[in-house]
Protein backbone atom coordinates (compact mmCIF):
# COMPACT_ATOMS: atom_id res chain seq x y z
CA UNK A 1 0.00 0.00 0.00
CA UNK A 2 1.22 3.49 -0.80
CA UNK A 3 2.28 5.39 2.30
CA UNK A 4 0.63 8.64 3.34
CA UNK A 5 3.92 10.40 2.62
CA UNK A 6 3.97 9.09 -0.95
CA UNK A 7 0.37 10.11 -1.52
CA UNK A 8 1.15 13.59 -0.18
CA UNK A 9 4.09 13.88 -2.58
CA UNK A 10 1.75 12.72 -5.35
CA UNK A 11 -0.68 15.54 -4.46
CA UNK A 12 2.14 18.09 -4.66
CA UNK A 13 2.97 16.84 -8.14
CA UNK A 14 -0.65 16.83 -9.30
CA UNK A 15 -1.64 20.17 -7.78
CA UNK A 16 1.52 22.23 -8.13
CA UNK A 17 3.80 20.41 -10.57
CA UNK A 18 6.41 19.79 -7.86
CA UNK A 19 8.05 16.51 -8.88
CA UNK A 20 8.86 13.75 -6.38
CA UNK A 21 12.59 14.00 -6.96
CA UNK A 22 12.50 17.71 -6.03
CA UNK A 23 11.29 17.09 -2.47
CA UNK A 24 12.64 15.53 0.71
CA UNK A 25 10.80 14.51 3.91
CA UNK A 26 12.43 17.35 5.86
CA UNK A 27 11.30 20.05 3.39
CA UNK A 28 8.68 22.44 4.75
CA UNK A 29 5.90 23.83 2.55
CA UNK A 30 7.68 27.14 2.83
CA UNK A 31 10.85 25.51 1.42
CA UNK A 32 8.73 24.37 -1.52
CA UNK A 33 7.54 27.98 -2.00
CA UNK A 34 3.86 27.20 -1.44
CA UNK A 35 2.11 30.49 -0.66
CA UNK A 36 -0.84 30.77 1.75
CA UNK A 37 -3.42 30.15 -0.98
CA UNK A 38 -1.49 27.10 -2.16
CA UNK A 39 -1.72 25.68 1.37
CA UNK A 40 -5.50 26.10 1.21
CA UNK A 41 -5.54 24.41 -2.19
CA UNK A 42 -3.45 21.56 -0.78
CA UNK A 43 -5.78 21.30 2.23
CA UNK A 44 -8.80 20.96 -0.07
CA UNK A 45 -7.00 18.40 -2.28
CA UNK A 46 -5.87 16.37 0.74
CA UNK A 47 -9.43 16.24 2.08
CA UNK A 48 -10.53 14.70 -1.21
CA UNK A 49 -7.56 12.34 -1.48
CA UNK A 50 -7.76 10.99 2.08
CA UNK A 51 -11.51 11.38 2.73
CA UNK A 52 -10.87 13.43 5.88
CA UNK A 53 -11.74 16.89 7.20
CA UNK A 54 -8.88 19.29 7.85
CA UNK A 55 -8.94 22.62 9.67
CA UNK A 56 -7.24 25.70 8.22
CA UNK A 57 -4.33 25.17 10.62
CA UNK A 58 -3.60 21.48 10.09
CA UNK A 59 -1.16 22.12 7.25
CA UNK A 60 0.97 25.22 7.74
CA UNK A 61 3.95 26.81 6.07
CA UNK A 62 6.46 25.57 8.66
CA UNK A 63 5.27 21.93 8.55
CA UNK A 64 7.75 19.48 7.08
CA UNK A 65 6.34 16.85 4.76
CA UNK A 66 7.00 14.23 7.44
CA UNK A 67 5.00 16.24 9.98
CA UNK A 68 2.21 16.85 7.50
CA UNK A 69 2.00 13.12 6.73
CA UNK A 70 1.71 12.45 10.48
CA UNK A 71 -1.19 14.91 10.73
CA UNK A 72 -2.93 13.21 7.81
CA UNK A 73 -2.34 9.78 9.38
CA UNK A 74 -3.79 10.90 12.71
CA UNK A 75 -6.92 12.26 10.97
CA UNK A 76 -7.43 8.97 9.16
CA UNK A 77 -7.18 6.96 12.37
CA UNK A 78 -9.77 9.08 14.15
CA UNK A 79 -12.31 8.92 11.30
Amino acid sequence: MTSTYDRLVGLLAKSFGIEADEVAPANTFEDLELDSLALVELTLAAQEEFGITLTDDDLHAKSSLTEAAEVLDAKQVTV
Partner: protein
Amino acid sequence: MNADTAVLCGLGTWLPPHAVTNDDLARELDTSDDWIRSRTGIGTRYVAAPSTATSDLAVEAGRRALKSAGFESVDAVVLATTTPDHPCPATAPLVATQLGLGTVAAFDVGAVCTGFLYALAVGAGLIAAGTAGSVLVIGADMYSSILDPADRSTRAIFGDGAGAVVLRSGGADEPGALGTPVLGSDGTGSDLITIRSGGSREPLGTIGAGHPDPYFRMAGKAVFRNAVERMADASLTAARRVGWAADDIDRLVAHQANLRILHAVADRMRLPRHRCPVHLDQVGNTAAASIPLALSHAVTTGRLAPGHRTLLTAFGGGLTWGACAVRWPTITPV
Protein backbone atom coordinates in the same frame (compact mmCIF):
# COMPACT_ATOMS: atom_id res chain seq x y z
CA MET B 1 -50.07 26.60 -18.76
CA ASN B 2 -48.43 27.92 -15.61
CA ALA B 3 -46.56 31.18 -16.17
CA ASP B 4 -45.03 31.63 -12.74
CA THR B 5 -41.47 30.61 -13.59
CA ALA B 6 -38.85 33.31 -14.19
CA VAL B 7 -37.35 33.09 -17.67
CA LEU B 8 -34.10 34.87 -18.50
CA CYS B 9 -34.68 36.80 -21.74
CA GLY B 10 -32.16 39.67 -21.91
CA LEU B 11 -28.54 40.38 -20.95
CA GLY B 12 -26.65 43.67 -20.89
CA THR B 13 -23.32 44.82 -19.49
CA TRP B 14 -21.25 47.94 -19.02
CA LEU B 15 -17.62 48.60 -18.12
CA PRO B 16 -16.18 52.05 -17.52
CA PRO B 17 -13.70 53.01 -20.27
CA HIS B 18 -10.53 53.37 -18.18
CA ALA B 19 -8.45 50.15 -18.01
CA VAL B 20 -5.83 49.68 -15.29
CA THR B 21 -3.21 47.02 -16.07
CA ASN B 22 -1.05 45.15 -13.59
CA ASP B 23 1.92 47.19 -14.80
CA ASP B 24 -0.04 50.37 -14.03
CA LEU B 25 -0.53 49.14 -10.44
CA ALA B 26 3.13 48.11 -10.16
CA ARG B 27 4.18 51.70 -10.84
CA GLU B 28 2.24 52.78 -7.75
CA LEU B 29 2.36 49.83 -5.34
CA ASP B 30 4.82 47.14 -4.27
CA THR B 31 3.52 44.53 -6.70
CA SER B 32 4.18 43.13 -10.17
CA ASP B 33 2.37 41.61 -13.13
CA ASP B 34 3.81 38.21 -12.14
CA TRP B 35 2.76 38.50 -8.51
CA ILE B 36 -0.83 39.47 -9.40
CA ARG B 37 -1.24 36.92 -12.22
CA SER B 38 0.13 33.98 -10.25
CA ARG B 39 -2.07 34.69 -7.22
CA THR B 40 -5.28 35.79 -8.92
CA GLY B 41 -5.17 35.22 -12.69
CA ILE B 42 -6.11 38.88 -13.19
CA GLY B 43 -4.44 41.02 -15.87
CA THR B 44 -6.62 44.14 -16.20
CA ARG B 45 -9.48 45.80 -14.39
CA TYR B 46 -11.60 48.86 -15.20
CA VAL B 47 -12.00 51.88 -12.96
CA ALA B 48 -14.78 54.45 -13.18
CA ALA B 49 -14.03 58.17 -13.27
CA PRO B 50 -14.34 59.94 -9.90
CA SER B 51 -17.42 61.82 -11.10
CA THR B 52 -19.21 58.51 -11.75
CA ALA B 53 -21.53 56.72 -9.30
CA THR B 54 -22.83 53.15 -9.17
CA SER B 55 -26.22 54.28 -10.55
CA ASP B 56 -24.47 55.50 -13.72
CA LEU B 57 -23.02 52.04 -14.33
CA ALA B 58 -26.32 50.35 -13.40
CA VAL B 59 -28.31 52.51 -15.82
CA GLU B 60 -25.97 51.69 -18.72
CA ALA B 61 -26.16 47.94 -18.06
CA GLY B 62 -29.92 48.09 -17.44
CA ARG B 63 -30.56 49.95 -20.69
CA ARG B 64 -28.59 47.32 -22.60
CA ALA B 65 -30.39 44.41 -20.93
CA LEU B 66 -33.78 45.91 -21.82
CA LYS B 67 -32.61 46.34 -25.41
CA SER B 68 -31.34 42.74 -25.49
CA ALA B 69 -34.76 41.54 -24.29
CA GLY B 70 -36.66 43.87 -26.62
CA PHE B 71 -38.49 45.33 -23.60
CA GLU B 72 -39.39 48.97 -23.07
CA SER B 73 -40.73 48.48 -19.58
CA VAL B 74 -40.60 46.06 -16.64
CA ASP B 75 -42.62 45.78 -13.43
CA ALA B 76 -39.70 45.91 -10.98
CA VAL B 77 -36.01 46.76 -10.67
CA VAL B 78 -33.81 44.85 -8.22
CA LEU B 79 -30.28 46.19 -7.86
CA ALA B 80 -27.50 44.25 -6.14
CA THR B 81 -24.68 46.46 -4.91
CA THR B 82 -22.24 47.00 -2.07
CA THR B 83 -21.46 50.53 -3.24
CA PRO B 84 -24.79 52.38 -3.37
CA ASP B 85 -24.69 56.03 -4.48
CA HIS B 86 -25.50 56.98 -0.85
CA PRO B 87 -26.05 55.05 2.41
CA CYS B 88 -29.68 56.22 2.08
CA PRO B 89 -31.84 55.96 0.02
CA ALA B 90 -31.46 52.81 -2.07
CA THR B 91 -30.01 53.34 -5.54
CA ALA B 92 -32.57 51.28 -7.52
CA PRO B 93 -35.38 53.90 -7.57
CA LEU B 94 -33.06 56.46 -9.18
CA VAL B 95 -31.91 53.83 -11.70
CA ALA B 96 -35.54 52.97 -12.56
CA THR B 97 -36.33 56.65 -13.08
CA GLN B 98 -33.27 57.24 -15.24
CA LEU B 99 -34.26 54.23 -17.36
CA GLY B 100 -37.69 55.81 -17.91
CA LEU B 101 -39.47 53.00 -16.09
CA GLY B 102 -41.78 55.30 -14.15
CA THR B 103 -43.04 54.34 -10.69
CA VAL B 104 -42.24 50.62 -10.68
CA ALA B 105 -41.09 48.75 -7.57
CA ALA B 106 -37.35 49.32 -7.10
CA PHE B 107 -35.01 48.37 -4.27
CA ASP B 108 -31.45 47.31 -3.50
CA VAL B 109 -30.24 43.92 -2.32
CA GLY B 110 -27.07 43.64 -0.23
CA ALA B 111 -25.20 40.34 -0.36
CA VAL B 112 -21.78 41.62 -1.44
CA CYS B 113 -20.32 39.38 -4.17
CA THR B 114 -23.34 37.05 -3.98
CA GLY B 115 -25.61 40.05 -4.62
CA PHE B 116 -26.48 39.15 -8.19
CA LEU B 117 -27.57 35.61 -7.23
CA TYR B 118 -29.67 36.93 -4.35
CA ALA B 119 -31.24 39.60 -6.59
CA LEU B 120 -31.95 36.98 -9.23
CA ALA B 121 -33.71 34.81 -6.64
CA VAL B 122 -35.71 37.81 -5.38
CA GLY B 123 -36.69 38.72 -8.94
CA ALA B 124 -37.80 35.14 -9.60
CA GLY B 125 -39.79 35.27 -6.36
CA LEU B 126 -41.60 38.45 -7.43
CA ILE B 127 -42.62 36.66 -10.61
CA ALA B 128 -43.66 33.45 -8.81
CA ALA B 129 -45.79 35.48 -6.38
CA GLY B 130 -47.50 37.35 -9.21
CA THR B 131 -46.20 40.70 -7.96
CA ALA B 132 -44.36 41.29 -11.24
CA GLY B 133 -44.59 39.88 -14.75
CA SER B 134 -41.10 41.08 -15.61
CA VAL B 135 -38.09 42.19 -13.56
CA LEU B 136 -34.84 43.95 -14.38
CA VAL B 137 -32.11 42.44 -12.19
CA ILE B 138 -28.91 44.49 -12.06
CA GLY B 139 -25.56 43.84 -10.39
CA ALA B 140 -23.46 47.00 -10.24
CA ASP B 141 -20.45 47.80 -8.11
CA MET B 142 -17.82 50.51 -7.97
CA TYR B 143 -15.23 49.04 -5.61
CA SER B 144 -12.79 51.75 -6.61
CA SER B 145 -14.80 53.96 -4.22
CA ILE B 146 -14.21 51.69 -1.18
CA LEU B 147 -10.69 50.31 -1.68
CA ASP B 148 -7.73 51.46 0.40
CA PRO B 149 -5.41 53.12 -2.14
CA ALA B 150 -2.44 51.59 -0.29
CA ASP B 151 -3.80 47.99 -0.14
CA ARG B 152 -2.12 46.11 -2.97
CA SER B 153 -4.10 42.90 -2.47
CA THR B 154 -7.60 44.37 -2.86
CA ARG B 155 -6.58 46.90 -5.50
CA ALA B 156 -5.14 44.10 -7.63
CA ILE B 157 -8.34 42.10 -7.41
CA PHE B 158 -11.33 44.42 -7.73
CA GLY B 159 -12.65 46.30 -10.74
CA ASP B 160 -15.75 48.39 -11.43
CA GLY B 161 -18.57 47.24 -13.68
CA ALA B 162 -22.24 46.45 -14.11
CA GLY B 163 -24.36 43.72 -15.64
CA ALA B 164 -28.08 43.08 -15.86
CA VAL B 165 -30.62 40.50 -16.97
CA VAL B 166 -34.32 40.73 -17.73
CA LEU B 167 -36.59 38.08 -16.25
CA ARG B 168 -40.12 37.53 -17.52
CA SER B 169 -42.84 35.13 -16.42
CA GLY B 170 -43.01 31.92 -18.40
CA GLY B 171 -43.10 28.16 -18.22
CA ALA B 172 -40.63 25.89 -16.45
CA ASP B 173 -39.81 24.02 -19.67
CA GLU B 174 -38.81 27.07 -21.70
CA PRO B 175 -35.18 27.78 -22.54
CA GLY B 176 -33.95 30.36 -20.02
CA ALA B 177 -36.27 29.16 -17.24
CA LEU B 178 -34.51 29.44 -13.89
CA GLY B 179 -34.33 26.43 -11.61
CA THR B 180 -35.11 26.87 -7.93
CA PRO B 181 -32.26 29.01 -6.55
CA VAL B 182 -30.10 27.80 -3.66
CA LEU B 183 -29.16 30.53 -1.16
CA GLY B 184 -27.22 30.41 2.11
CA SER B 185 -25.44 32.51 4.70
CA ASP B 186 -23.16 32.14 7.71
CA GLY B 187 -22.81 35.11 10.03
CA THR B 188 -20.02 33.43 12.00
CA GLY B 189 -17.83 34.61 9.12
CA SER B 190 -19.14 38.19 9.16
CA ASP B 191 -15.68 39.52 10.04
CA LEU B 192 -13.95 38.02 6.99
CA ILE B 193 -15.16 40.55 4.40
CA THR B 194 -15.96 43.97 5.84
CA ILE B 195 -16.09 47.72 5.73
CA ARG B 196 -15.71 48.20 9.48
CA SER B 197 -16.66 51.84 9.91
CA GLY B 198 -19.50 53.94 8.58
CA GLY B 199 -22.42 51.80 9.76
CA SER B 200 -24.47 51.93 12.98
CA ARG B 201 -21.93 49.78 14.87
CA GLU B 202 -19.18 52.28 14.29
CA PRO B 203 -20.49 55.51 12.75
CA LEU B 204 -17.92 57.71 11.08
CA GLY B 205 -17.21 60.87 13.02
CA THR B 206 -18.01 59.35 16.42
CA ILE B 207 -15.79 60.95 19.04
CA GLY B 208 -13.53 58.47 20.79
CA ALA B 209 -14.19 55.67 18.31
CA GLY B 210 -10.50 54.97 17.84
CA HIS B 211 -9.20 54.72 14.31
CA PRO B 212 -12.06 54.44 11.87
CA ASP B 213 -11.49 52.20 8.85
CA PRO B 214 -13.79 53.19 5.99
CA TYR B 215 -12.17 50.76 3.54
CA PHE B 216 -13.11 47.32 2.24
CA ARG B 217 -11.05 44.54 3.88
CA MET B 218 -10.87 40.85 3.12
CA ALA B 219 -9.19 37.94 4.94
CA GLY B 220 -8.00 36.24 1.78
CA LYS B 221 -7.03 32.79 3.01
CA ALA B 222 -10.17 32.03 5.01
CA VAL B 223 -12.34 33.49 2.24
CA PHE B 224 -10.62 31.30 -0.35
CA ARG B 225 -11.51 28.06 1.37
CA ASN B 226 -15.07 29.05 2.23
CA ALA B 227 -15.66 30.26 -1.32
CA VAL B 228 -14.52 26.98 -2.85
CA GLU B 229 -16.54 24.74 -0.54
CA ARG B 230 -19.72 26.84 -0.54
CA MET B 231 -19.85 27.48 -4.31
CA ALA B 232 -19.15 23.85 -5.18
CA ASP B 233 -21.69 22.46 -2.73
CA ALA B 234 -24.42 25.02 -3.59
CA SER B 235 -23.88 24.32 -7.29
CA LEU B 236 -24.34 20.59 -6.85
CA THR B 237 -27.51 21.21 -4.82
CA ALA B 238 -28.90 23.58 -7.48
CA ALA B 239 -28.11 20.98 -10.15
CA ARG B 240 -29.90 18.23 -8.21
CA ARG B 241 -32.99 20.46 -7.92
CA VAL B 242 -33.38 20.38 -11.70
CA GLY B 243 -32.40 16.73 -12.01
CA TRP B 244 -28.85 17.17 -13.33
CA ALA B 245 -25.91 15.03 -12.21
CA ALA B 246 -22.54 16.76 -11.88
CA ASP B 247 -21.44 15.47 -15.26
CA ASP B 248 -24.54 16.95 -16.94
CA ILE B 249 -23.31 20.48 -16.21
CA ASP B 250 -22.10 21.99 -19.50
CA ARG B 251 -21.04 25.34 -18.04
CA LEU B 252 -20.41 26.60 -14.52
CA VAL B 253 -20.42 30.38 -14.60
CA ALA B 254 -19.02 31.25 -11.19
CA HIS B 255 -18.41 34.57 -9.49
CA GLN B 256 -15.09 35.74 -10.91
CA ALA B 257 -13.22 36.08 -7.63
CA ASN B 258 -9.88 34.49 -8.40
CA LEU B 259 -8.73 32.02 -11.07
CA ARG B 260 -7.42 29.64 -8.43
CA ILE B 261 -10.83 29.61 -6.73
CA LEU B 262 -12.51 28.80 -10.06
CA HIS B 263 -10.13 25.89 -10.60
CA ALA B 264 -10.58 24.57 -7.06
CA VAL B 265 -14.40 24.75 -7.38
CA ALA B 266 -14.25 22.76 -10.63
CA ASP B 267 -11.91 20.20 -9.04
CA ARG B 268 -14.15 19.77 -6.00
CA MET B 269 -17.14 19.18 -8.30
CA ARG B 270 -15.01 16.86 -10.49
CA LEU B 271 -15.88 19.08 -13.43
CA PRO B 272 -13.35 19.65 -16.24
CA ARG B 273 -11.90 23.12 -15.66
CA HIS B 274 -12.67 24.20 -19.23
CA ARG B 275 -16.37 24.11 -18.42
CA CYS B 276 -15.88 27.13 -16.13
CA PRO B 277 -15.68 30.25 -18.34
CA VAL B 278 -13.03 32.74 -17.22
CA HIS B 279 -13.47 36.50 -17.55
CA LEU B 280 -11.58 37.85 -14.54
CA ASP B 281 -8.31 37.98 -16.47
CA GLN B 282 -9.78 40.92 -18.41
CA VAL B 283 -11.92 42.71 -15.79
CA GLY B 284 -10.86 41.52 -12.32
CA ASN B 285 -13.44 40.78 -9.64
CA THR B 286 -16.39 43.07 -10.35
CA ALA B 287 -18.36 41.88 -7.30
CA ALA B 288 -22.13 41.87 -7.96
CA ALA B 289 -21.52 42.50 -11.67
CA SER B 290 -19.25 39.52 -12.27
CA ILE B 291 -21.78 36.87 -13.28
CA PRO B 292 -23.65 38.86 -15.95
CA LEU B 293 -20.31 40.17 -17.26
CA ALA B 294 -18.92 36.62 -17.43
CA LEU B 295 -22.11 35.36 -19.09
CA SER B 296 -21.95 38.05 -21.76
CA HIS B 297 -18.28 37.39 -22.45
CA ALA B 298 -18.87 33.63 -22.64
CA VAL B 299 -21.73 34.08 -25.13
CA THR B 300 -19.88 36.53 -27.38
CA THR B 301 -16.78 34.30 -27.46
CA GLY B 302 -18.85 31.20 -28.23
CA ARG B 303 -18.09 29.46 -24.93
CA LEU B 304 -21.72 29.53 -23.84
CA ALA B 305 -24.35 28.47 -26.36
CA PRO B 306 -28.13 27.98 -26.40
CA GLY B 307 -29.11 24.70 -24.78
CA HIS B 308 -26.10 24.51 -22.47
CA ARG B 309 -27.04 23.23 -19.02
CA THR B 310 -25.62 26.14 -17.08
CA LEU B 311 -25.08 26.77 -13.39
CA LEU B 312 -24.56 30.21 -11.93
CA THR B 313 -22.87 30.40 -8.52
CA ALA B 314 -21.41 33.04 -6.25
CA PHE B 315 -19.90 33.59 -2.83
CA GLY B 316 -19.40 36.80 -0.91
CA GLY B 317 -19.28 38.74 2.32
CA GLY B 318 -21.80 37.94 5.01
CA LEU B 319 -20.84 35.24 4.47
CA THR B 320 -23.33 34.55 1.68
CA TRP B 321 -23.51 32.16 -1.24
CA GLY B 322 -25.90 30.92 -3.85
CA ALA B 323 -26.41 28.94 -7.04
CA CYS B 324 -29.05 28.64 -9.72
CA ALA B 325 -29.51 26.41 -12.77
CA VAL B 326 -30.63 27.63 -16.18
CA ARG B 327 -30.75 25.99 -19.59
CA TRP B 328 -29.11 28.74 -21.63
CA PRO B 329 -31.58 30.50 -23.96
CA THR B 330 -31.06 32.12 -27.36
CA ILE B 331 -30.30 35.73 -26.49
CA THR B 332 -27.97 38.38 -27.84
CA PRO B 333 -26.07 40.27 -25.13
CA VAL B 334 -25.85 44.02 -25.65
